[in-house]
């Protein structure tokens, strides 16, 4: 019989009050290194910094646009498949050109474009990519992703420190 535990509190359940920094860690928590985004979001949420909202999500859904519109800085965190790369990378983002259909999921640039279209503004935005080796079924990180997780948290701390 299944263990009768309370469902885990989700970092998706974020306060409705606007925050100056919104961090969105996204990925599939059952596909190996793809869980690094949500793990980083959970770690940032545990810092309990004022004005910082950390969201662990599986997809970048359109509903995130409202939170982004109220923020000054958005940080997206995702795993990046790479057989050779070892370093965490930070990419400054701008909205994508709005010449394609938007479904119920998006990428960071598409989401920024949606935010701008809906609310007339979008936050400064960065994409932190963590090198990933394996997306096999399972919940464990590869050693590369583990190291990347720690390095990403350092970069995120710097971004937040510079923003607030």
């Amino acid at each position: 019989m299944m263990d009768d535990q309370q469902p885990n509190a989700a970092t998706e359940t974020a306060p409705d009050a606007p925050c100056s920094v919104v961090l969105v860690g996204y990925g599939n928590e059952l596909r190996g290194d793809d869980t690094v985004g949500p793990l980083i979001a959970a770690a940032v949420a545990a810092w309990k910094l004022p004005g910082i909202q950390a969201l662990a999500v599986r997809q970048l859904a359109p509903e995130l646009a409202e939170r982004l519109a109220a923020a000054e800085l958005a940080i997206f965190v995702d795993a990046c498949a790479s057989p050779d790369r070892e370093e965490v990378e930070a990419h400054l983002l701008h909205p994508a050109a709005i010449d394609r259909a938007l479904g119920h999921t998006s990428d960071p640039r598409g989401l920024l474009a949606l935010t701008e279209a809906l609310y007339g503004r979008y936050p400064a935005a960065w994409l932190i990519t963590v090198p990933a080796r394996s997306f096999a079924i399972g919940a464990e990180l590869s050693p590369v992703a583990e190291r990347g997780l720690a390095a990403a948290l350092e970069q995120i701390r710097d971004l937040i420190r510079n923003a607030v």
Partner: protein
Amino acid sequence: MLASTQNSELCRGVDMAQRIVIDPVSRIEGHAKITIELDDGGQVRDARFHVTEFRGFEQFCVGRPLWEMAGITSRICGICPVSHLLASAKAGDEILAVRIPPAAAQLRRLMNLGQIIQSHALSFFHLSAPDLLLGMDSDPARRNMFGLIAAAPELARGGIRLRQFGQQVIEQLGGQKIHPAWAVPGGVRAPLSAASRDLLASRIPEVRAIALDAITRFKAMLEQYHEEAQLFGNFPTLFMGLVGADGAWEHYDGLLRIVDGGGQVVADQLDPSRYHEFIGEAVEHWSYLKFPYYRPLGYPDGIYRVGPLARLNICTHFGTPLADAELSAFRAYGKGAVTSSFFYHYARLIEILAAIERIEVMLDDPAMLSEHLRAEAGINALEGVGVSEAPRGTLFHHYQVDQHGLITWVNLLIATGQNNLAMNRAVLQIARHYIHGPHIPEGMLNRVEAGIRAFDPCLSCSTHAVGQMPLHLELLGPDGEVLDQVMR
């Protein structure tokens, strides 16, 4: 492997053999292809809606413990995981032979209503509204969510807020928006907190206003789609779904009712657990999606539809004032039953409104905060059928287990699959009316796609039976000779 021009980009073309292929069909859940065949005179001879993906849950679930099935089957889909979660849990209830606590049943209902809201909102605002509100002949580059935002920003924002509310209901109950590990055989795993109840209740006025505004806008634009409304999959079929004891609109329990295209009851008070006695499943070699049919009328005459259009055709009332008012207006578009698939959109919006009204009433009940939520039992039956109304229609999870609770057999009868015959007929009807000859304006092809979108098919859910058909693209000459082919 398909030719690269077809593999990643929309392929719309008329080849020398007068076969029109729309691949992939855009703005639907999952993957499909439509093939339209023209005769020598350039008129539509046949059209087929091919589902080109295979999932296989019915096979790889064999051997798994019953307790895992809710979690496994909820991952059939990221749009309607709650539907599978609830149907699976209900099948488990049958195998445990328990009656779950009333509060657990009410909370499951609450989550299902949230699911209906978010799924219908996605379908209308994200997938179909660009066609409906911008026009099917509008610039394809702008006939999308961004075009909708530019033309009707408040509507677009409202649609996102509405879907977000539905997901919030799911999240407040299950802890997460997608694949909540919450409903289990015997009940549910967590209660509704007072804080969650208050949060959801506070949003009712806003989302009700959004739903009413969407309905008003939809009805206002119906006149410009009079032709589509008459021709978009408009033909008599049976309609099937769950109804309450008094004929009220149902979404979680109840018995099955089947009505015909004139609204006459064909069968009533049917036990859903005995679905296999009156629903058969046919297979065609050209699609991974099965073809369910009403057995007494045979295949394919036993064509029937499920989902919002069916639910509104079979029920007598909603029992909530705003939705009942819209139901009366809805019925004016048919004689006994509304038969045009175009009105799935209207039915969807009315169901959103009904769900909001019902949630408001439920949240007012102190019993919703009960923590008595589980009925504990072991394996007491070796077979169970769980049935509920998913946003797209009636969903059946049928399991057989051994005495240890390990799955020995699974059948999943999915809503979208039950609309398969009707979707194919709709494609043929639309194609025959709008397509004459090999030179087709963009808007006409989009009408064929839009006809499919009216059903809001979830193809990711629907394809689980073992199939042997490879994915195959054939280019046929006028005499049927295969000129070229690719396989994967």
